[in-house]
């Protein structure tokens, strides 16, 4: 069975780390949540949803990883990361709002590595 293209997870890692870097810069500069961060979170969310869709297609097509329950858990939790971080960060009217967004970016990148470990056909 061929592998899922590594382009999308790699893009998500780069996007997540870039978002984390920008958000941490905002924290360092004492800025609070703004439109740029929310748009960037939205872009990350779309990338994650596309990734989840491609993995679901792969599962429907008959592919089965060893740790299927774990993979399903990740497929549910992954798209929630930017959403929950966005709400939790937007509630904060200080530099610590962007800090929450930075965590979401880092988590998105780490999740790509974990997904690859759970199911190696998901290339990174």
């Amino acid at each position, binding site marked *: 069975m061929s592998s899922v293209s590594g382009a999308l997870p790699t893009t998500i890692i780069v996007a997540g780390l870039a978002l984390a870097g920008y958000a941490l810069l*905002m924290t360092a500069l004492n800025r609070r949540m703004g439109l740029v961060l929310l748009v960037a979170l939205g872009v990350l969310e779309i990338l994650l949803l596309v990734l989840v869709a491609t993995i679901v297609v792969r599962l429907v097509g008959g592919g089965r990883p060893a740790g299927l329950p*774990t993979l399903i858990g990740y497929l549910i939790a992954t798209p929630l990361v930017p959403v929950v971080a966005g709400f939790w960060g937007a509630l904060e009217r*200080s530099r*610590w709002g*962007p800090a929450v967004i930075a*965590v979401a970016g880092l988590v998105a990148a780490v999740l790509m590595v974990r997904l690859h470990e759970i199911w190696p056909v998901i290339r990174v």
Partner: protein
Amino acid sequence: MSEPIAPPEQAPARPESTRTGPGRLLVAVYGLFALSASARAGVQIATKFSHAPVAYLLSAFAGVVYILATATLANGSPTARRIAVVSCSVEFAGVLAVGTWSLVDPATFPDATVWSGYGSGYGFVPLVLPVFGLLWLRHWAKRAAAQRTSMPAARDEAETAGGGAVDARQR
């Protein structure tokens, strides 16, 4: 840079609760570990408990401690803060004990827990998280003590409202 600069009055403003200011970040990271540790332990115990029972039970215990710390830090009432101090202390003791145990006796841990190798599988975040949690709670304990001595009348209001009264006054 189009991100709004935090208004000047907010830069030195003190957080209103254990869940605001730096606490916002702390609760987010605690919530992340609460979810990942307990979900992981749940799957492991349900699917392959006999493979590494000690590791999985310790993961489940860690998950419960993280859930408790997340909920109490997010609540921020005086009682919640006391419970948070206990759970962060247990967490710190746990990561030190399990970290040492996993290095001395690797045979007991064929599969990793959150706290194995002092949390090395999670970028050592489990090791530093309780330290920041306890520092944050100590800051709040000092603040509550200062409030008690300086303005006894406002104490009950500010304390029982979880800082909501302070919040309203600032706006």
